[in-house]
C-alpha cells in the first residue's frame, strides 16, 4: 500500500528501487501510515526512533524548537552528541539540519527573527541561559561554514586571529607554534609554510576550507560544527577534508551537516536523519546506512527523495 503512495509521488525510474526495497519495510510503516505522503508521515512524527541519547553526552539537546518569525523550522528535537564522536546530520534540503547546527553555538543569534526554545547543554551548562556570554561559548564550540570564508588577511593572521582575541598565548613564539600546529592538524602546513604572509583569499577553494578549519582548531574548541564543509569543493579537496575530519575526531567532538550520504557514511560514528524539521532517526552510522529503523530514513538513503 505504502509503495503505491510513493510511486504516485515519484513515478519515475526510482520505482524500480522501491520494488527492490519493498521487503525491508519497517515496523513503523504500519497501517497507520498507509496512504500517506512522506510529508504527512514526517508531520506525524513525535518521537525519534533509534538511539538519540548517549552516555557521555558532550552536547545534550532537549525539546529544541526553532522558529523563524511565525514559521517553525525545527520541531522538538532531542539529541545527544557524545564526546569525541562525529555525528552526521543528514536530510533533504530545507529540513532544518543547518538551522539546528547553528543553534549549537548560537550563530542563530545573528538572525533577528530566529527564536530557539528548549534546552541545549554543553557539559551540563545551558547555552541559552540569558546570562551566558556567547563569546566564550563560541570559543568552545567552533564552526566551519559551507563556503570557505577566510578573512582577507594573511594566512598566518587568519589562524592567529582566534588565539589573539581570546588571549590564549602571551608570546609571539607560542603563537607561531599554535599557528603551525593548527595548520599541520588541518593538513595545510606543507602547502603554505613558505607563504604564511600571503593573503588567505589567494588559496584554492579546498585550501581555503582547510585554512578555515585550521583557524577554528587554533582556538582548541571542544566541539567543531561543520555546515556542509565540502559542498563548495571538488572531490579531491573533499577527500582531504574528510581525511582531516577523521583525524580531528580523535581530539574533538564534531557535528557535521552534509548533503552527501557517502560522506556521512565515511566520516561519522552516528548519523541523525532530519525530515521537515523533525529528527526522524538517530543510530550508529553503519546501522542507518544498512538497516535503518524508519521508513523515511530508508526512503532517503535509497534515494527515493531528497
Amino acid at each position, binding site marked *: 500500500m505504502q509503495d503505491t503512495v510513493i510511486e504516485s509521488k515519484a513515478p519515475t525510474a526510482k520505482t524500480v528501487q522501491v520494488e527492490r526495497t519493498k521487503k525491508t519495510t519497517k515496523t513503523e510503516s504500519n497501517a497507520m501510515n498507509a496512504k500517506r505522503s512522506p510529508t504527512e508521515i514526517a508531520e506525524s512524527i513525535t518521537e525519534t526512533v533509534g538511539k538519540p541519547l548517549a552516555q557521555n553526552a558532550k552536547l545534550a539537546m532537549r525539546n529544541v524548537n526553532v522558529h523563524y518569525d511565525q514559521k517553525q523550522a525545527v520541531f522538538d528535537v532531542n539529541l545527544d552528541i557524545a564526546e569525541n564522536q562525529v555525528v552526521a546530520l543528514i536530510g533533504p534540503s530545507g529540513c532544518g539540519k543547518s538551522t539546528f547546527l547553528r543553534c549549537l553555538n548560537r550563530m542563530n543569534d545573528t538572525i533577528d527573527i530566529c527564536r530557539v526554545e528548549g534546552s541545549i547543554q554543553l557539559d551540563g551548562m545551558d547555552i541559552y541561559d540569558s546570562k551566558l556570554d556567547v563569546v*566564550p561559548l563560541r570559543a568552545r564550540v567552533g564552526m566551519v561554514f559551507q563556503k570557505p570564508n577566510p578573512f582577507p588577511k594573511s594566512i598566518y593572521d587568519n589562524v592567529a586571529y582566534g588565539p589573539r*582575541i581570546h588571549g590564549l598565548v602571551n608570546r609571539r613564539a607560542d603563537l607561531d607554534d599554535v599557528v603551525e600546529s593548527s595548520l599541520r592538524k588541518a593538513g595545510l602546513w606543507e602547502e603554505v609554510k613558505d607563504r604564511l604572509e600571503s593573503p588567505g583569499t589567494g588559496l584554492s577553494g579546498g585550501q581555503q576550507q582547510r585554512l578555515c578549519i585550521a583557524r577554528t582548531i587554533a582556538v582548541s574548541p571542544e566541539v567543531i560544527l561543520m555546515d556542509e564543509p565540502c559542498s563548495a569543493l571538488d572531490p579531491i579537496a573533499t577527500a582531504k577534508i574528510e581525511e582531516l575530519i577523521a583525524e580531528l575526531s580523535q581530539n574533538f567532538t564534531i557535528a557535521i551537516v552534509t548533503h552527501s550520504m557517502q560522506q556521512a557514511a565515511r566520516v561519522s560514528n552516528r548519523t541523525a536523519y532530519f525530515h521537515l524539521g523533525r529528527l526522524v532517526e538517530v543510530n550508529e552510522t553503519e546501522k542507518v546506512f544498512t538497516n535503518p529503523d524508519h521508513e523515511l530514513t530508508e526512503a532517503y538513503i535509497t534515494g527515493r527523495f531528497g
Partner: protein
Amino acid sequence: MTSPNNSKPLSQQAALVQKSLAKRYASERRFKAYGLASVLFGLCALLVLFVEIFGGGLSGFKTTQVALTLELDSDVLEVYDATNPDEILAGNYTGVIRNALKERFPDATGRKEKRALYSMISVGATYDLRDQLAADPDLLDTSIDVWILADDDIDTYYKSLSSVPYAERMSDKQQQWVQDLIDKQEIRTIFNTRFFTSGDSSEPEMAGIRGAIMGSLLTMMVTLLLSFPVGVAAAIYLEEYAPKNRLTDFVEVNINNLAAVPSIIFGLLGLAIFINLFEMPRSIPLVGGIVLTLMTLPTIIISSRAAVKAVPPSIREAALGIGASKMQMILHHVLPLAMPGMLTGAIIGMAQALGETAPLLMIGMVAFIMDVPGAITDPATVMPVQIFLWSDSPERAFVEKTSAAIMVLLMFLMFMNAMAVLLRKRLERRW
C-alpha cells in the same frame, strides 16, 4: 528583409509593417538625436562655464607693477633709525612714493591731477616698502629702483589693453601716463604671490585668499573630525546593531529626508541653536564646522552604510564562529573592509561641504575679515563665501579675483574627487 522584387509577395500584414517602417525609423533617429542633443547641451554648459571662468580668472593670478626710483630720505620718511621697529612702523612711506611719482611725471599739476597720479599706486606699495626697509636698514638715505604695486584701476586697464581696453575709471591723463610707462617699459605684470599670502582686503590689488583658504581648512577640519566618526558609528549601529523596530525606521526616514533638506535650513538651525541659544560667537570655523557636519552627516551615513552592507556576511560569520564578540567582529573585520568605501563617502561629503555657502551666510561667516585665522575660534570666512563676497563687490578688478578664487576652489574640489575615485579604484575589493 529582402526586397519584394525577387521573393514571394508579402502577406498583407508584412506589407503594412513594411510601410510603417520608414516612419518608425525616422522617429527612432529623432529620439536618438534628442538624447545626443541633451548630452551635448550638458557638455556645452560645462565647457562655457569653464571657458568663462578660466578665461577671466587666469589674469587674476597676475598683478601689475610700476617701476619707480625711490629716494628713501630719512627726513621725508621721518625714520632716523631704521633698526627701531616703532619708527619703521610710523614711517611716511606715502610721501616717498608721492615724491617719486612727482619726479617721474612732472606734468601732473594741480590738485586733481596730482590726486589722479597718486591714486595710480596701491596703498599696498607702502607696506611693501616698509617691509623692505625693515629687512634692510642700510637702505635708509639711499635711492632704490623698485617695482611697486599698481592700483587696481591701473591693473585692470593695463591687462585689458591687449583686448578691449576698459578705461571707465581712468582719466585721459592717467591713460597717457600708463602709455608712457609702457613705452619706457616701466610697467609689467608678474605672478601675484600676494593673492596666496594675504587675507581679504577692500583694495582688490591687495586682496588674497589665504584667509579664506585657512578658514576653509579649519572649518573642514572640524567637519571631518566630527562627521566622519559620528557618521561611521551611526552607519555601524544601523547596519549591525539596530533592531528592526519603529525607532530604527524613524531614524532611517530621518536620515534620508535630511539628506535632501535645503542647506540653508541647516544655517537657520545653526543660527537659532548655536548662535542664539548657546551664545557661541559668530563667524567662527567651529560653528561653521558643526553646521556643515549636520549637513554632511546624512551623506556620510548613507555611503558608510552601503560600504558596511557590502562586506559579505560570511566574514562576519567566520569571526563570530571563532568566538569573536560583536565589537571585535566589527572593529577587526567589518570596519577595515568597509573603510575604503567609507572614506570615499567622506571625501565626497567633504567636497560638498567645501563648496557650501548658504548655511555659512546664516551664521555670519560673511563678515569682512582681513586677518588670516589661526584657530577654530578665530573669526574667519571660507572660500565659497569669499567668492560670494568678491562677486558682490562693485570694483571691476574683483571679477578676475573671483574667477581666480573659483579656479583655486575647483582645483581643491577636483583633487578631492580624484582622490575619492582613486581610493575607490585602488582599494576596491572584489568578493
